[in-house]
């Protein structure tokens, strides 16, 4: 099952075609990847991924990852750049369908329904599993229309005032309301980078998805806006399931209950956030969180 095998000298041999940032294998048996360390299951799973492989063309980007995402929990995904965090996250709402060369193997279930089933409709799936992207991507339309777009196409509101309420509430939650309430008709692309990202967060939560995937939502935000988004994540956890990719260990520690550490397309370790940060069991995880790597 595992394609990374330690040889006698303890040097990791990388499987052919595995993509990722160049790194020097550490000659240490504790750094060999022998399946995922820790408990991949959640108490009350919302989404379950089993033996997922993702290929870009014939490059393997995600190698045999199994992971549960539990109800009312925030799971943080950390790992060095290029290790496949975004790729895995995008599998969860089939965003990878848009990439021609991308191929997903394995099984991912949302509430017992295999989302890669050929009969499954991606439109309701994406209404249920929303996503905030790594790069802010507001529509070149007004701020109001950006937020109102999802509720409009799904027919979530029956009147203009209801829609207004959703827009206001979503912008409030995303911590953007005060800055834009007087210029809702201005174009969303005219906002600053951080404001754009919060607009995208508002756009996602306006649809009220049950699972929210966030790909480094705070990478363009200042500490105040970051704190606001983290607060939001905490609030949303009560109703929703959240998977967040982040490069900030502090953020992972602050907002998540479980943490998954990815390395070169493999899931190295997963467990309670407290345990991962205080007592990592795998050598690579330890290297990463102590700053010896990445």
């Amino acid at each position, binding site marked *: 099952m595992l394609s990374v095998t330690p040889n006698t000298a303890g040097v990791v041999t990388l499987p052919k075609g595995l993509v990722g940032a160049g790194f020097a294998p550490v000659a240490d048996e504790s750094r060999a990847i022998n399946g995922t360390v820790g408990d991949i299951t959640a108490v009350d799973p919302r989404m379950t991924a089993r033996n997922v492989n993702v290929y870009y063309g014939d490059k393997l980007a995600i190698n045999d990852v199994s992971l549960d995402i539990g109800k009312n929990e925030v799971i943080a995904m950390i790992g060095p750049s290029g290790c496949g965090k975004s790729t895995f996250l995008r599998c969860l709402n089939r965003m990878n369908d*848009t990439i021609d060369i991308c191929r997903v193997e394995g099984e991912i279930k949302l509430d017992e329904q295999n989302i890669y089933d050929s009969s499954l409709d991606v439109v309701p799936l*994406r*209404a249920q599993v929303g996503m905030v*992207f790594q*790069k802010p*991507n*507001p529509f070149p339309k007004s701020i109001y229309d950006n937020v109102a777009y999802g509720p409009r196409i799904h027919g979530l509101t029956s009147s203009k005032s209801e829609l207004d309420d959703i827009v206001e509430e979503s912008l409030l939650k995303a911590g953007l309301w005060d800055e834009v309430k007087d210029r809702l008709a201005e174009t969303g692309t005219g906002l600053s980078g951080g404001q754009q990202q919060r607009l995208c967060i508002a*756009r996602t939560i306006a649809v009220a998805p049950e699972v929210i995937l966030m790909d480094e939502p705070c990478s363009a935000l200042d500490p105040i806006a970051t704190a606001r988004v983290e607060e939001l994540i905490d609030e949303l956890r009560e109703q929703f399931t959240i998977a967040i990719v982040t490069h900030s260990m502090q953020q992972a520690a602050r907002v998540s209950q479980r943490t998954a550490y990815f390395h070169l397309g493999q899931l190295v370790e997963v467990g309670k956030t407290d345990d991962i940060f205080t007592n990592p069991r795998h050598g690579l995880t330890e290297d990463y969180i102590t700053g010896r790597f990445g």
Partner: protein
Amino acid sequence: MSKSEQQQARTIDRVNTTLAQRYGRERRFRRFGFFAVVLGLAFVGVMFLSIIGKGYSAFQQTRILLDIEFTESVIDPSGERDPAVLSSANYSALIKNSLRALYPEVKDRKEKRELYGIVSNGAALILRAKVMADPTLLGSQAQLWLPADDDIDMLVKGYIDRTVVQSERRVKDNVIAWIEKLESEQKIGKFFNTTFLTGGDSREPELAGIGGAVMGSLYTLIVTLLLSFPIGVAAAVYLEEFAPRNRWTDLVEVNINNLAAVPSIVFGLLGLAVFINFFGLPRSAPLVGGMVLTLMTLPTIIIASRAALKAVPPSIREAALGVGASKMQTVFHHVLPLSMPGMLTGTIIGMAQALGETAPLLMIGMVAFIVDIPGSAMDPATVLPVQIFLWADSPERAFLEKTSAAIMVLLGFLIVMNVLAVILRKRFERRW
């Protein structure tokens, strides 16, 4: 001095030594670009000057002031005012009477014929139209400015040299004497030429107008636009957004690119074989012309539209799909509006090509001599470039200025289209 400071000094020195060279290159390139622009503008300027210089006089028409007596016995001897009689009456007799009264000294038969020739054949038609519109004119007398013959027109406009020997001149001495008499009495003058703008083609240069060709071009372009824009955009959207990437779509893509390079006359042959011979559509009709030009402009529009679609950042598509928009909604709500300016540019380029196209239209009979102004896309018609081609081929001196003037009208058409394109682009353009 530490090692790194030394290093830094060296970098600065190196930068300085190459700096002059770099700026020199930049200056040369800028000068070259400026020169290219000036050269281009100069060519355009020379072209415009020569065309306008030759063509402007076509917008003027020489007319002669004649005393016309609407003699009832000539036009309507029975006095019943029957429209059929009125319309077929001999109106040129009125003009001949008037001319004879003006030059009583002309007695000789041959000379009389020359005298009658100084007024255009179209003058009789003008009189007829007047009488048909208002039969009470009969029996009255009026002073009317009637168009002169094209040779007289050329003479008055100064294109015929009055000093060369008679045998090398289109207008004979006696005629010049008559015209000079008219000039001295101020009974001949130049007026704005409405006939040229509103009339159809004619064998008589002074009666020939560009109106028929303008209408023909207009109908042809409307048909082309109505067919090629929706088909082109739909094809581009399908190929770019929906079609699977496989051997078949690759083949289609290669073929579309090849079609763009096919000589346009081939499309004319195709139109002749398919639309006219097989489907039995009328010859010389703007409908068929528009269909043929659609074939020709489609590749241009499809290629430009696909490029415009490709230029829409994928992140916009992901954003829409991410909130649960369907493929169709993503394309129609976000991608298409963003690519519209590019698509419109492509369409305008295609339409400009279509406007200037001659060869394929020759194949489907739009080169015929057509006097009537087309009233619909099914009527026989010709188009501006074909009209230019026809006039350029005519031997009469007066058609030379018509040709240039027709080119001016064609260029005016193009300018209007481009302005329209700019306005449309501005309307659709969005910042992101």
